[in-house]
Structures are given as C-alpha cells and as structure tokens.
C-alpha cells in the first residue's frame, strides 16, 4: 500500500476531492500547512516594522491506497490541483506497511 501526500493550494481541495472520489477513493485526510518554495511570499508591516513572510498557505491531503491505485491517484490529483502557476505544490508517494480500520479492526487492503 502507498500513502500519497498531496501538497496543494487551499482552494483546490474540493477539486482534488472530486477527482479522487471519481477514481473510487473512499477516504482521505486533509490538514492545513504552510509552504516555502519557489512561490514568493509577501511583506507585512506593523507600525513601521517590516516582516518578510515566506510561508504561504497550503493544504496537505493524505490518501492511503492499494499499490495499483497509487499512480492513478497521483495522476488525477495532479490534474485537479494544477493551475500552471508557481506554487502548485508537490505529490509524494510513500510506502505503507499496513493499514487498520479502527471501527472494525480490519487490516490491509480491506481497511482502506
């Protein structure tokens, strides 16, 4: 099994969710994040004191899936998340040893 981590622009969450559900993905977990990268941040000024803010808002979407689903998910997520502008984000694929569904105790592919 694989965990696919998608770092994307916040307003793309719904699009990505839809793209993945169309593929048959049944669940995912999202969290807020801040990203540093090629996309530049912005300046903030408080009573004349300047701060450079390099971190821009991002979301992280995590999906665990069967091995063969992983490439499809990566592809669909990339298409949904893409705007073509710098800062679109990254997708990481990470190996997963095992999964368990808390409610039932099922493990492996059944638990996804």
């Amino acid at each position: 099994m694989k965990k696919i981590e998608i770092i994307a622009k916040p307003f793309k969450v719904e699009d990505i969710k839809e793209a993945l559900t169309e593929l048959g993905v049944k669940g995912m977990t999202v969290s807020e994040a801040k990203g540093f990268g090629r996309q530049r941040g912005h300046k903030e000024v408080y009573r004349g004191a300047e701060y450079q803010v390099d971190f821009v808002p991002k979301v992280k979407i995590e999906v665990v899936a069967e091995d063969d689903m992983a490439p499809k998910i990566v592809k669909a997520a990339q298409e949904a998340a893409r705007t073509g502008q710098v800062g679109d984000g990254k997708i990481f694929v990470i190996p997963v040893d095992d999964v368990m569904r808390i409610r039932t105790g099922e493990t492996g592919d059944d638990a996804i």
Partner: protein
Amino acid sequence: MNAADTAFVLVCAALVMFMTPGLALFYAGMVRSKNVLGTTMQSFVLLGLGTVVWAVVGYSLAFGTDFGGIIGGFDFAFMRDVGLDTANSPAENLPHLAFMVFQCMFAVLTPALITGAFAERMRFGPFLVFSALWLILVYSPMCHWVWGGGWLGQMGALDFAGGAVVHMSSGAAALAGCLYLGKRKGYGKEPNIPHNLPMTVLGAAILWFGWFGFNAGSALAADGLAANAFVTTHFAAAAAMLGWLIVETLHSGKPTTLGAASGAVAGLVCITPAAGFVSPMASIVIGLLGGAICYGGVLLKGKFGYDDSLDVVGIHGLGGTFGALATGVFASIGAEGLIMGNPKQLWIQFVSVVATWIFCFVMSLILYKVVDAVMGLRASEEDESKGLDVTQHNETGYQW
C-alpha cells in the same frame, strides 16, 4: 439652548459614531479571513475621511443656505459660523456644533454601508477617492433634499432618520457597484463562508445599540417623540429578527444566527424612515414584514446573478424602500399615512423612493466609471486571490 436635549443628542452622536466600527465587524465577520482587515478598513477609514470631508464641505452642502431646493451653499464650509451656541443651528434647542456632529456620524456611516456590495475585490486607493466624491456629490445633496430644506422635504416626504438619505442611497450605490465591478473571482464555485460569525453578531449588536442614537436622536430632543422612536426602533428590530427566522426556517430548514443578526439589521433599516411617525404596534408589523422581505431580497442576487457580497441591496436598498413606503402607510404620529385615510402621503413616499433610487444609482455609476477610468477600481486577480489584507494593507488579520 436646552441642556437635556444637548446631553441627549451628544450621547446619541456617540452612539451613531459607534455604528461604523460596528458595521466594520458585522461585515468583516462575513468575509473570508484573508479579507478581514480590508473589509474592516473600508468602514473604519471613513471615520477619518468622511469626517474631514464633512467638516470641510459636506455639512455646508447639506445644511447651508438652500439653492433651489437642490443643494446648500458654502456658508458653513470649514465650519464657518458653526459654533458653541445655537446661532444658525438648524435645531434651535441645540448648540450648532452638536447638531453638526450628530449629522456627521450619518455621513460617515452611509458610504461605509455601500462597501458590503463590493467587498473582497476593490483597491483601497480608488475606494477612498470614490467615497470622498460620493459623499460630496451623492450624500450631501440627498441629505439636503430631505433634511436641509430641499425639494423632497418641501414636498412633504417623510424620512425620520434616513430611509432615503442613508439606506436607499447606499443601497442604490451598492447595486451600481456590484453591477459595475462584476463578481468576485470564483463566485458561486468556491465556498464563500463567513469566517467569524461571532464577530458578525457583535457587529449587529453594536449596530442595534447605536441605532437608538440614530433614530431616537433624530427627534433632536429628549421627549416623547424620542421615546417613541426608541421603542419603534427596538420593536421593529425584534420583530424583523423573528420575521427573518420564520421565513428562513420555512425556506432552508433551520433558523440561523446569521439570520437573526441579518433580520435585526433589516428591521432597523426598515423602521429608520418611520421611527418617529408610527406607533409601536405598527413597528412590529413593519418589522415582521421587513424581515421577511429582506430575506427575499438577499435571494434576489441568486436570481439576477449579481454578486452583492454582503447583501447591501437586499437589506439596505430593499429595506429602506419598504420602510419609506410603510411610513406612507402607517404614519400616525405627527403625520398621516394611508391607514389614517391619507393616500397622498403614500404617493409622496413613492415619488421620493423613485427619485432617490434614480439619482443615487446614476450618480454612483458615473462615479465608479470615472474613478475606474482614472485609477482602476478592481484589485488584480492575483491580489484578489491573495486577499486584500496582504495586498492592500501589508497585514494579516490573525496569527496563531
């Protein structure tokens, strides 16, 4: 000079002043957090800009010597002849300065009301220019027409505390604004959910609180009329909250907090022109209907497809209009409306409604176009998506 009236009107002026930051909260709670300061600022800064414009020229245009029922002269420009005593004071029981500053708070609030229509997408500099011009070219004449000795007042139009001067005028400017500027990026696709509803409720509460100054203070004396305006204000707000919640529950299943706050504000808008003219029970009727009507008003934008971000047209435009007409129906104190057997008053109210909408809509549209041509009103796509806080003000609202 009457000390009790002076005390009352000064305190009322303070209450009305408090409405502008109240409005800032009311509005800012409804936008997305990336625009919380930009939205706040569009109200808050008018306490600065609007006040100075009023002192320099606005008050004089509104209350200076009448020219043909259309506009006041420059007699009071730069506060000339506006003094500590009652000399020249439009309200002879009050120090001229007290009357002037009470009116000043209205002039500050009115352009702030408009900003809900184009929230989340206007550049700050052009906004300031637009607002200053609007105060001088739209608000001051309107104020003169109704309260400064102008033609609407002469005609007998009833507007106790600003149904036309404040709410219809800002509502018409709002409609012009959202039509002219177009929709926000992602409108209808991205969820556009209020980021902080407790802030909006607090704003509504401050508005309600300040509105006692707005309406009861418009009696310009601490008397039975003020008491009546106070009561009708409170009753209409209360009834409109219920009216909105009832219709909302029927329409979308549950009564919401935003609905309660919006309904209350709608009721306050509706009763504004009527406050001193109608009885308490009539104000409950006006409130109940007004709340229901304004709920319908906010649904209109979905039907017609304009993006009135915070429903200024639906609440202030429509509510002010309904209130003006309702005044023509229910007036029974110091004036007679339809129910007292005087259909003429309703006709006068109708004329004032039409005149106000046309004048304010057209003038506002021209101002948007002019300022746009010169400076560019709308924030760039990128700025809009980053939010006004960072792009217009170099700030963010919250750090956790």
